[in-house]
């Protein structure tokens, strides 16, 4: 029992700033074609809350995956030193044994099991395979009190608790595994403000008792409320580690975005025509929590020949907004949508396609392509009826249209009969583009159109966008890459936590302004 208790407050360790709980030295992690982490050094002192900041894709998650053993020793270069001892984690269990516990953004609790069962999942006290339930529930009570959940019954079904309490149970679970290095990855993404406050109080309490925390969050106000030290990553490199007292929110933002904008974006001069799509007072309900809105009263419009960029952090509601407009989101929507001045009801994707919307989704393998089918069948999929009079496919017309997009989008493949699963990411993305161009859309929505694509193919996709814009198509582009948004859009709308927090003309927008709006700024 004693070994499970929280580590006692050791005055000399806290007092001695040289004692590092964790040192990650010269970590380099390469994926085919990308260096995700480039010689990153990250040192966390004992008993502090250390915030890790950076844009999407800066390498925070990769670094934590290295630390938690998800990427085993040998798949990266560099050293991990915990309490002065070098560690080689070959699997997640090894890291857990060394006291590293990671709590992910998506909760990993079995909702149908009791709180106690979740706490002891994988290490249930049992003798000859028979579970000692009294011990489970008795000890659960102890860990629940540790995280301030005094009123939760360990026998209660976990799914009946709110998200905030489930988060606390995750933390209790981590503590019960003897964690002395707690990693919280975007812990407040799904929490209400009140729940955030409770969580921050628990962390303050831990800090007093000497538990070390790594806190990853996009929300800078939380970082400044809780952290002692901040490390900023950018493009897979350590930019620096700073005591919180030396920083301001603006300083952190400029450290995060830092880089100079290069001329990589062939933006067309703005020449907007009449409004095609107008959205007024549009809200989308969270399908899992009907009391919460994932999109809260949005009003905006898009004009012919214009690229409207949408900025926001992961989970802010960008994808939910466009999926809902396209009739493909599970949550109900409220508000008014007009196309060419005419109110429309986009209840399903068929209606949306009929009204001239097209959506290139962020996950082309999941939502965009049938990987086992060939190029021409994928290209014709959303407009099959136009080449199939009486329901019989005209294979010649299909081949002609397939060939048309093969050459106009410069898809690199043997022929339109090549199976799309064998193509490279950039070429697959062009097939998805071809599919939607064949529907002759008025409004083309691109959700992360260049994710996972090499630089050359990115440039080609920008050129295709420009060509469409000059033909009078309206484009809505979601992107996590600020330089891309700033380089290609004519206007940029910013979303933070389901709310519209900014609308900038391209000329006045800067990375700092957008970042400030996307992190909620000083709004809270």
């Amino acid at each position: 029992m004693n070994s499970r208790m929280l580590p006692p407050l050791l005055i000399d360790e806290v007092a001695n700033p040289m004692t590092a709980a964790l040192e990650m030295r010269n970590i380099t992690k390469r994926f085919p074609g990308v260096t995700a982490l480039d010689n990153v050094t990250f040192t966390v002192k004992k008993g502090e809350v250390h915030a890790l900041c950076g844009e999407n894709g800066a390498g925070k998650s990769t670094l934590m995956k290295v630390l938690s053993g998800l990427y085993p020793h040998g798949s990266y270069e560099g050293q991990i030193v915990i309490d002065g001892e070098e560690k080689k984690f070959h699997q997640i269990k090894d890291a857990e044994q060394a006291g590293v516990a990671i709590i992910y953004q998506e909760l990993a609790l079995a909702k149908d099991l009791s709180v106690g069962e979740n706490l002891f999942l994988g290490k249930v006290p049992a003798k000859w395979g028979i579970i000692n339930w009294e011990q489970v529930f008795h000890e659960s009570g102890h860990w629940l009190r540790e995280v301030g959940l005094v009123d939760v019954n360990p026998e209660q079904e976990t799914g009946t608790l709110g998200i905030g309490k489930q988060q606390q149970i995750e933390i209790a679970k981590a503590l019960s595994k003897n964690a002395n290095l707690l990693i919280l990855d975007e812990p407040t993404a799904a929490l209400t403000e009140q729940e955030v406050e409770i969580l921050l109080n628990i962390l303050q309490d831990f800090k007093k008792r000497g538990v070390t925390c790594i806190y990853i969050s996009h929300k800078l106000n939380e970082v400044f409320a809780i952290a002692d030290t901040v490390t900023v990553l950018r493009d897979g490199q350590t930019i620096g580690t700073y005591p919180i007292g030396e920083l301001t929110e603006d300083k952190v933002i400029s450290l995060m975005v830092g880089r100079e904008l290069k001329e990589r974006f062939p933006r067309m001069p703005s020449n907007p025509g009449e409004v095609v799509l107008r959205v007024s007072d549009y809200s989308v309900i969270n399908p899992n929590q009907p009391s919460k809105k994932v999109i809260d009263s949005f009003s905006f419009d898009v004009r012919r020949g214009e690229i409207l960029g949408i900025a926001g952090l992961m989970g802010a509601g960008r994808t939910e907004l466009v999926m809902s407009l396209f009739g493909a989101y599970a949550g109900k929507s409220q508000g008014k949508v007009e196309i060419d001045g005419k109110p429309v009801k986009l209840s399903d994707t068929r209606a949306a396609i009929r009204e001239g919307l097209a959506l290139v989704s962020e996950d082309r393998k999941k939502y965009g392509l049938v990987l086992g089918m060939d190029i021409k069948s994928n290209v014709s999929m959303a407009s099959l009826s136009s080449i199939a009079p009486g329901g019989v496919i005209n294979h010649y017309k299909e081949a002609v249209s397939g060939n048309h997009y093969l050459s106009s989008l410069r898809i690199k493949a043997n022929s339109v009969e090549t199976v799309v699963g064998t193509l490279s990411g950039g070429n697959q993305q062009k097939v998805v583009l071809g599919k939607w161009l064949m529907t002759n859309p008025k409004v083309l929505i691109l959700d992360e159109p260049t994710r996972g694509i090499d630089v050359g193919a990115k440039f080609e996709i920008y050129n295709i966008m420009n060509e469409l814009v000059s033909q009078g198509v309206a484009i809505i582009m979601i992107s996590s890459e600020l330089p891309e948004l700033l380089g290609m859009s004519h206007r940029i709308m910013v979303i933070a936590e389901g709310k519209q927090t900014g609308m900038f003309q391209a000329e006045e927008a800067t990375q700092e302004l957008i970042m400030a709006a996307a992190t909620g700024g000083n709004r809270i």
Partner: protein
Amino acid sequence: MSVNQETVLEHARLKQRPNWFKFDMRAYTMIGALMSIWILFSLLHDRFLSPTNLSNLFLQMSVTSILAIGMVLVIVAGQIDLSIGSIVGFTGGITAMLNVWYEWSTVPVILATLGAGAAIGFVQGWIIAYRAVPAFIVTLGGMLIFRGALFGTTGSVTIAPLTPSLKSIGQSYIGDVIGWVFGIIGLIVAGLLIIRKRRARAKFGFEVEPFAVSMLRLGVIGALIIGFVYLMNSYKGIPVPFVMVIVLALVFTFISRNTTFGRHIYAIGGNPEAARLSGINIKRRILLVFVLCNTLAAVAALVLTARLNAATMSAGQNYELDAIAACVIGGTSLMGGTGTIAGAIIGSLVMASLDNGMSLMNLESFWQYIVKGGILVLAVYLDIYSRQKKKA
């Protein structure tokens, strides 16, 4: 760097000359397996390859083939149907009751039977597609319900005999001359289709296979057709149920390859999310798939009842498993998205050959179960094994 890489890859791809003889390894494997089963049985029993027995074999495979055609569509769409065996029993009971007890004539009986199959398919398909109850459960329930309905409506007695014209659906043969006419028409159509395809491919800039390969292909098809007609004619002629199988197989091959409906079910099975976001009406398509599958079960019921000249209580029992096995042996993936009608027909020929050969050898029926089950597992194992090897 990656741009360079892509160019290199592209060159490699363009250099690779297509190998026209390697068109479908799976098809070869399947035909090879069928041939080895036939050779094995012909060595074990001298009458296995006799015209009489082969005629019997094609007659026997007809019911499974018709069921397998419908099952391919269901499995390609990512669903399953366990109820078709009981539907065969129940709709076969309807056929016999209307014909024997109520003395309906042949055409109304056929229409009523098909209508019953379609109605059952509509109800099951609606629950599956529009009420989101898993197909496994709905059709497992259907399997019990329709077997029970057969017992209840017929009072658990065998109903026989049918009127001669209805009986002829399952028991007659087409004459020698007509058989040859069909064979020659088939050969000409095959030749025309090959020429048309070559022209079209050339016109749209696709690679065209060498002329010799086309001719070889036509030669093989011709030999198969002529050999088949000759063989059947040396007994009583081509069995009418098998003619139905050929017609249905052609019609459904056309549906699966050339219609929007067919394309949609492959897309739904291949990636339901992408299909939904492409504006495909998944629910309506799934509903129609079940209507077709269960209507085909009613067709199979007509053939079976006519051949047996009676509706029995056990008619159609376990046929769904034969049909699923035929599809899977024929290369249909239970994950959905891939599968062909032709493959399912060959698969049901494999199953029927096993049944026929083992009965011929007077093996006890328990062996038939064990061997068929073993072959099914082996076929899927080999398929998964070869796919993994291909990936690695």
